[in-house]
């Protein structure tokens, strides 16, 4: 790059100041880190502090609602969410991410956590989710069944088989004896749905709940093979939960009649 000799003096001084700032910032980080680790543990009936919930991306809308209710019912608490692909969440927990609750989109991803002994007690299924075909509004290509997705010229996107929605789509396609070459294997269910919302793809195989959350931007088509690939959603408290009592209360809320109502409205099926 360009370098002007008469600039060097000023540059040096700036570099020195920058170094001092960096050292200060580093020390600030380490001191705040030690404070948070020695915070008093929440115990007893009075729930306080933050409860951190790692939840599958498909739970985003309903869990956000439940989080707000939880904060209202237990003043002084705060619910923070980390929504993402269940596999990456499980990997995060297994690598020591400080989470209280894990809600996964498949039994397989929950098993990754229970196998490592990170779940407290055995996880319970709290909802189930079923696949649907999402088409652009008005369903211009007349898609009524899984076979219709194989029509030539049709751009279909699926989730990658490494994420639960992709694994479920694969099971459903196999059950229907349909062999489908998609335009893309998307990294998660929301990006598959986005491709249809933007009309870049004509159809995607996603969850019922995602079709519902997208409102009138996509149209859902049910198909019988989806029954072969229903996903169980397990939830568990975590062994190293920083806030175990609040974690317990949050899991109870999700499983309660109130929680089931919110989840049912989002399109989830009862366990």
């Amino acid at each position: 790059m360009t370098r002007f000799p008469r600039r060097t003096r000023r540059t040096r001084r700036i570099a020195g100041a920058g170094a001092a700032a960096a050292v200060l910032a580093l020390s600030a980080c380490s001191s705040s880190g030690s404070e948070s680790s020695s915070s008093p543990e929440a115990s007893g009936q009075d729930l306080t502090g933050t409860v951190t919930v790692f939840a599958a991306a498909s739970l985003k809308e309903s869990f956000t609602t439940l989080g707000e209710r939880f904060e209202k019912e237990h003043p002084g608490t705060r619910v923070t969410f980390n929504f993402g692909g269940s596999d990456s969440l499980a990997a995060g927990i297994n690598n020591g991410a400080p989470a209280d609750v894990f809600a996964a989109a498949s039994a397989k991803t929950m098993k990754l956590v229970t196998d490592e002994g990170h779940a407290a007690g055995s996880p319970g299924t709290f909802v189930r989710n079923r696949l649907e075909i999402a088409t652009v509004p008005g369903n211009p290509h007349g898609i009524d069944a899984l076979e219709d997705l194989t029509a030539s010229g049709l751009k279909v996107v699926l989730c990658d088989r490494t994420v639960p929605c992709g694994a479920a789509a694969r099971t459903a396609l196999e059950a229907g004896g349909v062999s489908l070459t998609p335009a893309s294997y998307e990294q998660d269910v929301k990006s598959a749905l986005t491709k249809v919302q933007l009309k870049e793809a004509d159809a995607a195989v996603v969850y019922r709940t995602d079709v519902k959350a997208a409102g009138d931007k996509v149209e859902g088509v049910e198909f019988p093979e989806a029954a072969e690939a229903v996903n169980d959603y397990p939830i568990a408290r975590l062994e190293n939960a920083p806030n175990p009592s609040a974690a317990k209360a949050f899991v109870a809320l999700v499983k309660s009649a109130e929680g089931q109502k919110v989840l049912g409205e989002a399109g989830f099926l009862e366990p």
Partner: protein
Amino acid sequence: MTGPQAPAAGRETYRKPRAPGRGVPLALLVPALLGLAFLLVPLLALLLRAPWRDLPGQLTSPAVWEALRLSLFCATTATALSMVVGVPLAWLLARTEFPGRGLVRALVTLPLVLPPVVGGVALLLALGRNGVVGQWLDAWFGVTLPFTTTGVVLAETFVAMPFLVISVEGTLRAADPRYEEAATTLGASRFTAFRRVTLPLIAPGIAAGAVLAWARALGEFGATITFAGNFPGRTQTMPLAVYLALQNDPAAAIALSLVLLAVSIAVLAGLRDRWMRTA
């Protein structure tokens, strides 16, 4: 800070370079080493935790080679494309006066600060089948860019070109415009002066910019997966393969990353020796 001393020491090193370690101010040496360690420790961790036993198996898998070949092809094409349009753009910014030039320069560097995923969405809105420009491409030429290898190249170009433009523009500003002026007064057209005088003069800057752009394009993930999707052999480049492998087989992901790292280090080191010696 050692305010008064630093410039003095600097003036001295300016006259005769000393052996490293002696005469280097501590205020620079310590942060420099910290910075170096910060960059190298994660790479070391990758090497330490690498599943060396699985590595041969990973290397012989055709899927890996397919992704690697696609990555190298797309990054190289994206770099070539960036050079074809980026060098003239840099020239325009450095050598001409027009209203709003500062704003244009800021806009050119926008992809640097834009999260790549947002860049991918923007590309979809512009060049997608239903996009502002893309719908005409589809209607007139029957061309759709998302989910194609061309889409990968475009996504990588979008993210990587600013690196080239910035680098070339900086070199142009440092290069003495009087050479070009002399050429034009001797009768050369402005384009001939650019081709015969400016271009050879700034070649090292172009090379440095191209290497930066290539490296950025090779590692591109967000814009690519958003705009071009993920299909093995067509749009699944190495970073996409690494990300998806990470979901259920972290060991394979680390192995894939090592392959990508080794290839990029080999290429960059090779280029540095051969191509950038003049820089």
